[in-house]
């Protein structure tokens, strides 16, 4: 069992756990992920390793409540345990001194972009970071990102914090002003990564994205995570999760990601109804 020893609410729907997982913590590196299962009925869900402490034997997981499984996870408290955590999985980010790099994190993607930002900064890079979310309530970790960035641009779709813009707008300006940018990292919703890649393409800057597709095993056994790209399909769990965003077929990826939408809605509705009943029962008992 993998016990939760710390819980933090980062934003309206984004939560952070520090979890005991010594086997994972010992080997984890920035860019890798784990597969977790809430309980014996749970599905296998990939989550990025947002941070790790090999001495304490813990890892940090951050997730956004988007469906039944993540909502259930959100109800876990300190002392509760995950049924399973397997990892670290996937390739780690290739950390080097590239010179000048631009980091783009959208929504819950700010969590995985942070350890990469920190590692790149520590490797001597000059780091320009852009983080964005729909609104102020969904933003987090401006402080941590600031600490490891030479320049930080914050934006929200509704202008409730930082600049009122999508991340691609400041990104274009940054690239225009910094023709020497060697590499861009972009992590966030697939649609954001798609448009980030379209923005960087004319500048010819290599752009690394971290894909978060549907997965089952996470070890290369099912092919459910496959993504079409130039040169043929690749498995995100073993060939990735980071890829050159300019060769990904984003439209197929977006379609595959919404394949189970109606099933997800059904499971979410059942979960919410169930929670609602529990709340009512608790009220009645009082």
């Amino acid at each position: 069992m993998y016990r939760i020893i710390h819980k933090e609410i980062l934003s309206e729907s984004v939560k952070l756990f520090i979890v005991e997982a010594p086997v994972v913590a010992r080997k984890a590196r920035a860019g890798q992920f784990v597969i977790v299962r809430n309980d014996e009925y749970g599905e296998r869900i990939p989550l990025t390793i947002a941070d790790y402490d090999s001495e304490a034997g813990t890892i940090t997981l951050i997730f956004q409540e988007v469906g039944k499984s993540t909502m259930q996870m959100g109800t876990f408290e300190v002392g509760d345990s995950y049924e399973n955590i397997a990892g670290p999985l996937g390739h780690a980010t290739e950390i080097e001194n590239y010179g000048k790099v631009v980091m783009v994190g959208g929504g819950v993607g700010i969590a995985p972009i942070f350890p990469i930002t920190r590692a790149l900064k520590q490797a001597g890079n000059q780091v320009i970071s852009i983080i964005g979310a729909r609104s102020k309530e969904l933003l987090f970790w401006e402080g941590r990102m600031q600490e490891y960035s030479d320049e930080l641009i914050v934006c929200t779709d509704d202008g409730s914090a930082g600049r009122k813009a999508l991340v691609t707008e400041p990104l274009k300006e940054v690239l225009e002003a910094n023709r020497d940018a060697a590499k861009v990292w972009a992590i966030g919703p697939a649609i954001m990564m798609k448009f980030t890649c379209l923005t960087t393409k004319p500048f010819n800057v290599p752009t690394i994205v971290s894909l978060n597709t549907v997965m089952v095993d996470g070890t290369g056994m099912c092919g459910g995570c496959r993504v079409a790209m130039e040169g043929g399909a690749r498995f995100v769990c073993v060939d990735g999760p980071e890829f050159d965003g300019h060769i990904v077929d984003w439209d197929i990826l977006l379609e595959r990601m919404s394949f189970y939408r109606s099933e997800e809605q059904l499971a979410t509705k059942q979960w919410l109804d169930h929670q609602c009943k529990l709340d009512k029962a608790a009220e009645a008992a009082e």
Partner: protein
Amino acid sequence: MPQKKINPTRTPMPEQPAKERIRNFNEVTHGYSEEMAVNEAIRCLQCARPTCIQGCPVNIDIPRFLAHVANQEFQDAIDVIKKTNCLPAITGRVCPQENQCEGVCVLAKKYEPVAIGRVERFVADWEAEHGKPAAVNPAKPSGKKAAVIGAGPAGLTAAADLAKKGHQVTVFEALHKAGGVLSYGIPDFRLPTDVVRREVDYVTSLGVEIKKDFVVGMAATIDELLEEYDAIFIGTGAGLPWFLGLPGENLGGVYSANEYLTRSNLMKAYLFPKYDTPIAIGERVITIGGGNTAMDAARTALRLGARDSIIVYRRSKAEMPARAEEVEHAGQEGVQFHFLTSPVAYHGQKGRVQSLECIKNELGEPDASGRRRPVPVEGSNFQIEADVIIVAIGQSPSPIIAKTTQIDTGKGGILLVDKETMKTSKKGVFAGGDIITGGATVILAMGQAKIAAAAMDEYLRTGIWEKAEEADTESA
């Protein structure tokens, strides 16, 4: 030998009627009663020079155990089997007996062969119900530690044999459940979860520790494990699914058989939303392939609620590699077969698959496998509508282990071993099962694991590792 009158036909297997069983995931066959098992066992001629033993990859003394069954000495029968086969409830259900023991049964020349597999299954199930709890005679601890990678039939067999010899054994398994293909691949209606659990429990009762959620190569490499363990057995199977590489293959609704079966069996998607993992319930489901995996997928589709389940296979019925019983059961259940048909493209809209474009084949000259090669008939293209398509054309070993350590590999990423000892090119490391052959069978995996465990025991006791440089360089 006294003349006895032999029943020319084998005792029929009681089973759920096809109409009923396609609505549930319960086991198709009920298994023999004591009376049926005895009736079947007395059909054995007790040949002086039995051919069936050679036909069995683990050389079970078949006439002996059948003689015990004929005398209603069921405990003695299971004891004979367990000498060389630690998972009889499983092999009795899933071995391709028609190509093994039953295929060479002398009776088969004139009549139907003895239903050896069915009797084997009977005694294994009898033991689970009535038998004395397996006597665990703990061997004197050897003080040596062995690691086993993968909890499939190969890994479980090696672990059991090593534990019986007194070694301290730890099994590392990537998934959250032990059993390998037995847990994630073969459906409950053919091999119930409880049967697998029973066998896994037996292995742990020997003192074997199973560490789940542990992906070797990622959480620790083989070299790191060698610092802590005196020897390692690799039984990681052939888990990497093949795709056809045809246009449209990444449309939603196109699954590898591994994914489809894993969702249904391991993750229990057939009980969604009680279990969280979803699966697409197709109206019309096509499965591409002709092996056990394809039969399992096509029959699972029916049980999930498909109206039509269609197999597309490029050769003819005679060449299908699936167990005869599975093909027969699939037919009874209404699975439709398109033989001599090859897929050429998937078509769909809005990211969802809608049909499979196929081409007709003729049988040409025999190919390398000795089977007649399918040759496409130009211009014979046609479409089959489907909202779920399952690719079940085979699989090869996952490269995770080979990529993270220095070890010799052959065609398709199999590990190269010395066939006499199952030693790999790496000192202290042995391998067996699908990882050295590519997709094969449960019983072959177990047979190789037994050879490996014996050689490992010797290595652990003596520390002598010779012949490493002669590692077999031919691929299987």
